[in-house]
């Protein structure tokens, strides 16, 4: 009986049809109704269907803001668990003892699409106040192959929708197109190669019939890229390397004789954003490799640690803004660039906001790539005295130096082989996404308030081996690490509010008109007042929150959903800084709340 719930769709007509088909005893699946087919028009206008959550980052600008306000400041204290669903995917593989959940559910017409760490996709029918699994697609990820070169966990951050397809990635490098109704794989294509240390953890970004794929692996000597796959022809449209080839512009920022650029990192593992007005994709680029032996790769190491703007149609680079040239800290800039328009002194400013691992939040003019403002959003920064107010570069940055030392007594280098840095190498903010409230013009950053210790290993070309770590040292955790939610007023570029938390924020943010939702790796999901960040509601899931909340409606009723299951980098590499979290058990569960 229940199994037909998977075929019900938005319209009553479709539902009746489903019943009719079921009654006729047909086992064939229904075609997706026209209302269900996702096209560019719908992706551009998600505000017209506020009950759905169609983009990984909610809209093309990565606002993660929902206008739904049935759940609000006045009644959020009554929020309760509506239903839960256990998922799978906690198995180990490679160097990982278990998987975790970092995904953002996608919601469309009362159905949710979620992933587990190994890339299984679950379609869940959320009608009627409960969750029923419609189908599960297990991509049979090659766990040992991919898990051995996944630096930071068995992770998959979610899917995207296009036409009647669900588009997803696997850790072992594949792009899959899945029939939305049946859960059958329609086609798949290999995009990344774990033999080179490449894996995929991010959700695809869909732009004009293309799926944009980012790659992870800067800790394994990859040369990063972004790739666009045509969802009709299944062919690659373009692939743009984040590290220029010999002779290309930017290649002069790799000044070594080791050919360091060929294994120079520059991963792209967090889903980027898209500005339709200029047909521009803006994507955060990861750290250079080897992470901590910066003398191995003298030069600014473009386009690592940069926000990169590409022509969506051709993949051509339009502009870049680099945050930490010749990065010796693993302060990558892989974070999402949030696109906002705010009134400026001379007309509206079109900004791209990025909360960088280096502890600074940046606003860049997204038309020109020029710096507008920047400020530290963490409590403690020790590696630089601050940003140059004109250029936004760290004050100590010297373009004539091949190897940057910033504040040399703090900076890991071949003459400072063991040193403490703040923020620690997980950064002030890692992948967990920010949210932006366009009414209040407040930008909410999920913060890791941290320091840690870095040991440098001097690298030589013979140490570069396929599928082996290429980090030039490693971190340890002698200091306790905490967290905060930090709100920035985008009109002033100043911190408006900070709500400190006992643990780092490893999940990310959701904003609604007068609330923000977030979680803690110790298990709590919470709702805060959008202005004061005062806590208004909290529920302990009993697991570790390592994924962002989102919200949607079914039959007019608002729900908040979040995946719970601590995995990822923290659990393995950084846990000593948060000893209480050692008690958190691996888990894999979807929580859905309602009034």
């Amino acid at each position, binding site marked *: 009986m229940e199994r037909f719930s998977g075929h019900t769709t938005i319209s009553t007509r479709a539902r009746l049809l489903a019943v009719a088909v079921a009654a006729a005893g047909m086992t064939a699946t229904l075609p997706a109704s026209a209302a269900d087919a996702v096209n560019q028009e719908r992706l551009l206008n998600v505000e017209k269907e506020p009950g759905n959550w169609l983009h990984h980052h909610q809209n093309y600008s990565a606002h993660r803001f929902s206008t739904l306000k049935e759940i609000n400041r006045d009644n959020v204290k009554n929020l309760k668990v509506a239903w839960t669903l256990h998922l799978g995917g906690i198995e180990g593989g490679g160097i990982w003892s278990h998987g975790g959940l970092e995904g953002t559910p996608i919601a469309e017409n009362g159905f949710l699409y979620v992933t587990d760490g190994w890339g299984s996709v679950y379609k869940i029918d959320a009608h009627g106040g409960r969750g029923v699994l419609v189908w599960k697609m297990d991509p049979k990820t090659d766990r040992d192959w991919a898990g*051995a070169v996944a630096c930071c966990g068995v992770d998959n951050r979610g899917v995207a929708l296009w036409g009647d397809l669900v588009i997803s990635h696997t850790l072992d490098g594949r792009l899959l197109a899945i029939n939305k109704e049946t859960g059958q794989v329609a086609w798949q294509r290999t995009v990344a190669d774990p033999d080179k240390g490449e894996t995929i953890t991010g959700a695809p970004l869909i732009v004009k019939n293309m799926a944009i794929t980012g790659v992870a692996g800067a800790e394994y000597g990859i040369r990063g890229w972004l790739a666009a796959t045509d969802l009709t022809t299944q062919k690659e449209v373009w692939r743009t390397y984040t590290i220029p080839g010999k002779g290309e512009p930017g290649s002069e920022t790799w000044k070594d004789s080791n050919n360091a650029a060929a294994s120079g990192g520059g991963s792209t593992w967090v889903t980027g954003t898209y500005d339709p007005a200029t047909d521009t994709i803006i994507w955060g680029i990861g750290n250079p490799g080897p992470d901590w032996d910066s003398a191995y790769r003298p030069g600014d190491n473009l386009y690592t640690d940069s926000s990169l703007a590409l022509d969506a149609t051709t993949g051509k680079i339009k502009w870049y803004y680099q945050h930490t040239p010749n990065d010796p800290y693993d302060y990558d800039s892989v974070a999402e660039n949030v696109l906002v328009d705010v009134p400026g002194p001379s007309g509206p400013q079109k900004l791209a906001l990025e909360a960088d691992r280096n502890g600074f939040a940046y606003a860049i003019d997204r038309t020109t790539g020029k710096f507008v403002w920047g400020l530290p959003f963490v409590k403690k920064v020790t590696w630089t005295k601050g940003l140059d107010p004109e250029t936004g570069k760290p004050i100590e940055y010297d373009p004539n130096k091949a190897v940057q030392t910033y504040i040399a007594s703090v900076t890991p280098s071949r003459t400072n082989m063991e040193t403490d840095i703040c923020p620690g190498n997980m950064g002030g903010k890692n992948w967990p996404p920010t949210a932006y409230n366009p009414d209040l013009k407040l930008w909410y950053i999920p913060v890791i308030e941290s320091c840690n210790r870095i040991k440098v290993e001097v690298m030589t070309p013979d140490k570069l081996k396929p599928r082996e770590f290429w*980090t030039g040292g*490693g971190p340890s955790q002698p200091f306790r690490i905490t967290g905060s939610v930090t709100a920035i007023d985008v009109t002033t570029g100043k911190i408006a509010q900070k709500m400190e938390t006992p643990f780092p924020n490893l999940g990310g943010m959701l904003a609604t008109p007068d609330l923000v939702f977030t979680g803690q790796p110790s298990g709590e999901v919470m709702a805060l007042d959008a202005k004061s960040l005062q806590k208004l509601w909290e529920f302990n899931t009993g697991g570790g929150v390592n994924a962002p909340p989102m919200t949607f409606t079914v039959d007019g009723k608002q729900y908040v959903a979040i995946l719970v299951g601590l995995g990822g980098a923290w659990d393995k590499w950084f846990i000593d800084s948060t000893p209480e979290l050692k008690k958190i058990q691996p888990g894999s569960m979807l929580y859905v709340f309602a009034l």
Partner: protein
Amino acid sequence: MMNFNSFPAAPGMLLVSVVALNFSIGTTAYGQSAQAPASDPTNAGKAVFSKANCVGCHKWHGNGGGGYGGDALSLRKTELTRDQIIEIVGCGRPGTGMPFFMRGAYDEVKCHGMNRQDAGAQMPPEGGTFLRPKDIEAVADYVIAHIKGAGEPTYAECVTFFSSTSRVCDVYKTQAQKPDDAPASTGKGQ
């Protein structure tokens, strides 16, 4: 650098096979889950190497390597004896990330003459699973027979370790075919 030259694998292996026979009966429980041919007396230890997640830090090949976890030392280049390996697996190594795997270590059983209080901040982390003394011996024997003194990991070693359909070993196949990598892969026999 290549200190494994002074530790030829063959004599070690001989020694171990004899020792391993002594407790092969007690370890058949692990033999069930291990996929490798039943004839290798260190299969039990290989199963422990996976189950206790030695692979999580030292990798399947034991070479360890830097990375986010700091440096898990190379067990291929280790100079430790069987007894020393048994001790470090049981007690961990104070002040480093090498965990202890013996139940009651630093509590009922002192390690390096220390209990928890004595060890203080030097207290090594606790392994993800506790091992019985026989498991610890078995994993030490496995390390001595198959890892210590070995050169660069090879395709043959990899498929023996995984015996699965995973592509995890393919990279060693391609490497072996590349002539310029030959010196590395023949390191063991030098």
